[in-house]
C-alpha cells in the first residue's frame, strides 16, 4: 500500500503506482505536494499522487553522456550530480527556484535560455517509462544516445502536463560544461535595432549559449569555451555588433522576466515563435504593457499576462502562433492556434482510454 498524507498518495514503487492508477477514476500527479490546498467538493473524486518517493538517480556514467533518473527526482539534484562530473542538461531547465521535479519539467515542456546552444528538452530526452491510463507500465525510447526503434514517445510526452500518463523514469543525453563562460548585455537604443542584431546573430557564425532579447532592445548573450579563446571571441562579437558588451546589472534583471521562479500573480505563457515573428508579436503585446522576453535564439517568447487569457488567445490566433500557460491557475492551457488538437486527442485516447488523467485540449 502506498503511503498517504492528507489527500495524497505516495507510491514508493512502480507497482504501487500501477495499482493506484488501476483503482482510481481520476488521477492527478503532483510533483510539489506542499502546494496542496484542501480539496474542493469537485475534487473529492480526484486521486492525487506524489512521486516524491521515486526520486533516485538510477544510472549515471559520465563517459556515456547519459543519465537515467526517477521522475520524482528534483531537477536541481540531478543538475548537481551532473556538475560534479563537469556535465549539464543542455536544455537548461529553467525555474530553478521552484525546485521542480524531472517529471514536472518534462510534463510542462520547459527549456531555458541556454537551450540556444544545442537544443531544447525534446532534443535531449532519450527514454521515458510511464504508467498509462490502463495502469500499464510502458518503457519507450532507449538509454543510448541514438535509437530509432519504435514510436518516439519521449518526445511526444514533452508538454503534455500529465495527460497521457504518469512518468516514472526518464533518460537524458547530457553534455560537458564549457570550462569558461562570459555573460554580456548589449544595449541597443531601440527595439528595432536590437531585433535586427538579434536576427543577424542568430544566423551568424557565432556559437552562443544564450541569445535573448528584451522589448527595450537589449541583447543578453552568454558564450562558453576554452579559457584561452574567450577574450578573442568577445572582441569579435563586439566588433560585429559595433557595441561594447556590459555586465548585466540589477536594472537589467528587473526589466526582464526572471526565468528562475514563476511570477506570484498572473499567467506566465510560453509562446512558440520565430525570429522574424517577434516584431509583430511585440507590437501586438505592447498596448497591454505586460512583460515579455524573447529567448532561445528567437524561437520562444515568454509573456507575463495579467488580463483575461482569451485576449492573449485572440492575439496569438491572429498571428498564427501558439502558446501554453506554464504557471498560474490556468497552467497547461493552450492558447492561440490549436491545429494539433484532434490529432493529439486521438493519441490521448490510446494512452488513456478511460480518461483518468486530465485533458489537455478541451
Amino acid at each position, binding site marked *: 500500500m502506498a503511503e498517504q498524507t492528507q489527500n495524497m498518495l505516495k507510491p514508493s514503487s512502480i507497482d504501487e503506482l500501477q495499482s493506484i492508477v488501476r483503482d482510481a477514476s481520476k488521477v492527478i500527479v503532483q510533483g510539489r505536494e506542499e502546494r496542496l490546498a484542501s480539496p474542493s467538493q469537485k475534487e473529492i473524486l480526484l486521486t492525487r499522487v506524489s512521486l516524491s518517493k521515486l526520486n533516485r538517480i538510477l544510472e549515471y*556514467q559520465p*563517459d556515456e*553522456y547519459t543519465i537515467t533518473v526517477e521522475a520524482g527526482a528534483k531537477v536541481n539534484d540531478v543538475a548537481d550530480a551532473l556538475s560534479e562530473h*563537469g556535465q549539464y542538461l543542455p536544455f537548461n531547465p529553467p525555474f530553478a527556484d521552484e525546485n521542480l521535479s524531472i517529471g514536472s519539467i518534462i510534463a510542462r515542456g520547459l527549456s531555458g535560455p541556454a537551450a540556444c546552444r*544545442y*537544443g*531544447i528538452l*525534446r*532534443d535531449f530526452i532519450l527514454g521515458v517509462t510511464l504508467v*498509462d491510463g490502463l495502469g*500499464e507500465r*510502458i518503457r*519507450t525510447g*532507449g538509454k*543510448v*544516445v*541514438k*535509437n*530509432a*526503434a*519504435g514510436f*518516439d514517445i519521449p*518526445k*511526444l510526452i*514533452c*508538454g503534455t502536463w500529465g495527460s497521457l500518463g504518469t512518468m516514472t523514469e526518464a533518460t537524458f543525453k547530457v*553534455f*560537458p560544461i564549457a*570550462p569558461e563562460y562570459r555573460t554580456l548585455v548589449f544595449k541597443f537604443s531601440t527595439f528595432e535595432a536590437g531585433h535586427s542584431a538579434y*536576427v543577424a546573430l542568430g*544566423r*551568424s557564425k557565432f556559437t552562443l549559449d544564450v541569445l535573448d532579447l528584451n522589448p527595450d532592445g537589449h541583447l543578453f548573450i552568454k558564450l562558453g*569555451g*576554452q*579559457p584561452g*579563446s574567450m577574450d578573442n571571441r568577445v572582441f*569579435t562579437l563586439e566588433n560585429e555588433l559595433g557595441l561594447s558588451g556590459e555586465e548585466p546589472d540589477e536594472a537589467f534583471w528587473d526589466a526582464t522576466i526572471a526565468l528562475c521562479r514563476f511570477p506570484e500573480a498572473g499567467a506566465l505563457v510560453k509562446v*512558440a515563435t*520565430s*525570429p*522574424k*515573428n517577434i516584431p509583430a508579436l511585440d507590437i501586438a503585446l505592447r498596448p497591454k504593457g505586460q512583460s515579455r522576453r524573447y529567448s*532561445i*535564439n528567437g*524561437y*520562444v517568447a515568454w509573456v507575463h499576462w495579467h488580463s483575461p487569457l482569451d485576449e492573449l488567445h485572440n492575439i496569438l490566433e491572429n498571428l498564427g*502562433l*501558439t502558446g*501554453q500557460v506554464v504557471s498560474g491557475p490556468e497552467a497547461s492551457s*493552450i492558447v492561440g*492556434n490549436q*491545429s*494539433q488538437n484532434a*490529432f*493529439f486527442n*486521438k*493519441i490521448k*485516447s*490510446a*494512452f488513456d482510454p478511460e480518461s483518468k488523467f486530465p485533458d489537455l485540449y478541451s
Partner: protein
Amino acid sequence: MSDFYSKLRSIFPPDRLYEDAARVTPYVSDGLTVFREEPKAVVMPISNEEVADTLKLCHEFEIPFVARGSGTSLSGGSLPIRDGIVISLNRLNQILDLDPDNRTARVQPGVINSEISAAAADHGLYFAPDPSSQTVCTIGGNLAFNSGGAHCLKYGMTSNHILGLTVALPDGTVAELGNDSLENAGPDCVGLFVGSEGLLGIALEIQVRLMPVPESFQTILASYDSLEAAGDAVAAVVASGILPGAMEIMDRLAIEAAEAAVSAGYPEDAEACLIVELDGETAAVDADFQALSTTMEQTGAKEVRVAQSTEERLLIWKGRKSAFSAVGRLSPDYIVQDGVVPRSKLGQALKDISRFSSEAGLRVANVFHAGDGNLHPLILFDATEADGLEKAEALAGRILRLCLELGGSITGEHGVGVEKLEYMPDMFSPTDLDAFNRIRRAIDPKEISNRGKMLPSKEAPALSSQGPHPLEKAGVISRM
C-alpha cells in the same frame, strides 16, 4: 475491388498510375534487396490533394499503402505491401520556401536531402542531418526513419531538425502538426510523427530547421594498433570535456577497401583509424583543437594526422563515406546492421562481433559512428551458397541481440522496417508493443498505412537474395 482501381484512375492519369508488371517492377524492393513484393499499383501524386484523395480511397476500400521516397531504406521500410499500392512521392519535390532569417525551409517530401543544403548554402546555412545516402534519399524517407549521419552526437538526428508538418493521416484527413518554431507549445506531435516509419500517414510538407555553416573545421585522422585502442581514444576525448562534431572509426578491412577505392591516404598498416572533427567559431575551434591534441597525444596513436586544407578534410571524409561500398566490392553480397551500444561497451561489442564472425565463418567489416556507439557491422556473404544468406542473417541477429544485452538498441538510424521486426520483442515488452499498437490504431484503425512494418504482426515477407542496391552497383551511393 475493381471499384477501387477505377476510382484511382479518376484521380491519376495513366502516366502517373502504373498497374502493369513492367512498370511496377522497379518498385518491388528498396535498399534491402533481399525482400521483394509486387504492388498492385504505383501512383505518383503531384499535389497534396491527390495524396489525400488516394488515402481516402485506400481507407474506404481498406487497401494498404506504402509511401516511397527514393527507396534507399536498408530495413525494408519502403517494401511494397501485398495487395497494396505504392505512393511514390518523387514528384512532390519542391522547396516551397526558404527563410534565412528564421533559419527554416518548407519543403515537399520528395526533396532530396542534399538539395536543401545546396539551396541554403547561399545564405550560409545548411540542413544538418547527413546520411551517407544524402545525395539520393528524400526528406520524407529521412523523416519516417529519423535518419542519422556522422554528426548526430552534437547535432542530433533528423527529428531534431523537423519543426512542423502538414500530414495526410491514413483516412485522408490533413492535419497541421508543430509550427515554424524550434520550441513547442503543447505536446510534441511532430516528434511522434518523425520516426514513425510511415505508420501514421504521409508527410506532405515539412518545415525544417537550418543551421549556420560552421566557420571552421579541424579534422584529425589517427591510426591505432587495435580497434580497442581506437575505442579507448574515443572515451578519452569524451572524458576531456570536448564535444566534437563527429567521431568515426574504421577497421582494417574497411581501411584497406576504402584506400583501394578512393586513395584517401589512410595508413594501410593500421588496425583501426579514428576520425575526430571539431567545428564551430574559429577561435573556439582553435582552442578546442589545442586541448584535443593534448588528449590525442596520450592515446597511444601510431600516427596523428591533421587535415591541412579543405581538400584534405574532404578526402578523409570521402574515404569514410565510400568505405561501405568499397568493402561491398570485396564480396558478391552483404548486409549491414546498425545496432547501438553504450559507448563504454564499444570495445566489448567489437571483440564479440569478431568472435561471432569467426564462428560463423563470415567476414565482417566495421565502420561506425563511435561517438554515438552506433555500430555498422557489414556482413559479407555469398548468396550463391545454399545457406549463405541464412548464415549472414543469423550472424546479424546475434549481433543485434548482443547490442540489446549490452544495454543498447537494435537500430540507431536505419529503422525497424521489416528486417528487424523479429527483434522488436527482444527490445520491447508485450505491454510496450501493445501501447505502440494502440497508438497506431488510434490514428489508423484499419492498419493500412505501411502495414506489416515496424510493429510485429503475423504477416512476414519471404526472404530472397538480390545483391546490392542498383544505385550502389552504379557507385552513386554507399552504405554507412
